[in-house]
């Protein structure tokens, strides 16, 4: 993917989106447009669909209804959304048997680097001294920080992060937030599912609790695969 430290016209357009897991509708009628520089805190009670939504945005799953475009201008205009996003999940995707450096070198080769150098990126997150240790022996937070370094060595316009600050100590959280701001200034977009408040300048908030596919008492308000089976007359 082409070098670019400034992202042109990065966009995420969500219209009337509906999500479901298994046979069950989860979220319905979700609309949202994000442009370069935007940051959204994806909030909502446990099980409201934050992780599921991030996976759909990343192109790892498909929505059950509505449309969704993730795009940018320039060389990569026609790339599918998988190729425009970074996903930071609960797991860090590090190979314990490889050193931190080897891990990042692989991702550079795989995603196409053109970002910061490995040592620079690690220093940004304060784990430069771990570069030659096998990833297996890192602590939870150390792993998470190495994983975040991936976003710096292989730049992509859209960051989708699932509880990125979990396991980070206070110093690293501060570091992480400055990195996010820098990414936004470069025209990038950040969507972060979180349960804590992230102190970012004009941070939008998307509460999935506002787009339920069912009432508080659990009754579905939207048709889903389960409703299909329930259609038949009683046995």
């Amino acid at each position, binding site marked *: 993917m082409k070098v670019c430290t400034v992202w042109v016209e990065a966009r995420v357009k969500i219209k009337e989106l509906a999500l479901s897991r298994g046979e069950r509708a989860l979220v319905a009628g979700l609309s949202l447009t994000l442009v370069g520089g935007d940051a959204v805190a994806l909030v909502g009670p*446990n099980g409201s669909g934050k992780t599921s939504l991030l996976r759909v945005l990343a192109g790892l799953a498909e929505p059950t209804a509505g449309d969704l475009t993730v795009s940018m201008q320039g060389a990569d205009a026609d790339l599918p959304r998988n190729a425009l996003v970074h996903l930071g999940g609960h797991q860090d995707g590090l190979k314990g048997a490889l050193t931190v450096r080897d891990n990042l070198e692989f991702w550079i080769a795989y995603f196409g680097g053109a970002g910061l150098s490995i040592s620079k990126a690690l220093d940004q997150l304060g784990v430069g001294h771990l570069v030659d240790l096998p990833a297996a022996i890192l602590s939870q937070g150390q792993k998470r920080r190495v994983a975040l370094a991936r976003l710096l060595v292989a730049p992509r316009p859209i960051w989708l992060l699932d509880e990125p600050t979990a396991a980070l100590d206070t110093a690293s959280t501060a570091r992480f937030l400055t990195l996010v701001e820098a990414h936004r200034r470069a025209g990038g977009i950040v969507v972060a599912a979180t349960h804590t408040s992230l102190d970012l300048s004009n941070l939008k908030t998307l509460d999935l609790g506002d787009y339920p596919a069912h009432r508080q008492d659990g009754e579905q308000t939207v048709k889903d*695969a389960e409703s299909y*089976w329930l259609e038949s007359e009683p046995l």
Partner: protein
Amino acid sequence: MGILDYANPTRVLRFSRAVKPWFLGLGLITLAVGLYGAFFTAPADYQQGETIRIMYLHVPMAWLAMMAYSMMALSAIGTLGFKHPMADVSAKALAPIGATFTAICLITGSLWGKPMWNTWWVWDARLTSVLILFLVYLGIIALWQAIEEPIKAGKVTAIITLVGAINLPIIKFSVDWWYTLHQPASVFRVDGPTIYPAMLYPLLICAVGFTLVFFYLHFAAMENELKRRRIRAMQMRAARRVAPEQTTLPQGSTA
């Protein structure tokens, strides 16, 4: 979703309930006629003697075993191509039936083999490919059981079913491609059947009879599967309905 409206659970259940008895009734009658012909009017074979009568069970079972798999493959296309939930139901209902028919084909076959080739089993292409068919059936049943989530189960088994479909032509033509003890096709041949009418007609009648019964079983199994899914859906819904005393607690979770 348009296509779903044609075959929704209600319609399928209603249709199935309507036609099922007919399939069973006609099937049993036809079978009675066919088997009577097989055991009383049809001659014993000049070289095989009375054992030939196994044929009237063995051959239809073999045909139906393969037909069941073909139908499963079609359902699989319905699942992957059209995402039609009813295709899953059909496929899932077919697996155990097909497996049973294959098993009967194997058993009758080896019962027949003992007098004919004086061994229960030989590893020749036809017999082996049928045994593989049986194993594939078992694998597919295992898959259906192994996956909790119906949609995923449908897709995965559909893929495996299609992969397994290579086996059908192998079974059918094994007798022509490899040298086998087993005899080649004598009914469905381009140049017409090569067995006496006196044997052929009872055989065909039995085949029709078994086929009707087969469809009866298929519909019955589909009904059960529909009920199973309805019950599961109800349970999932019920599971998420918040019990009264919890509504007093602060809202912490989605339903």
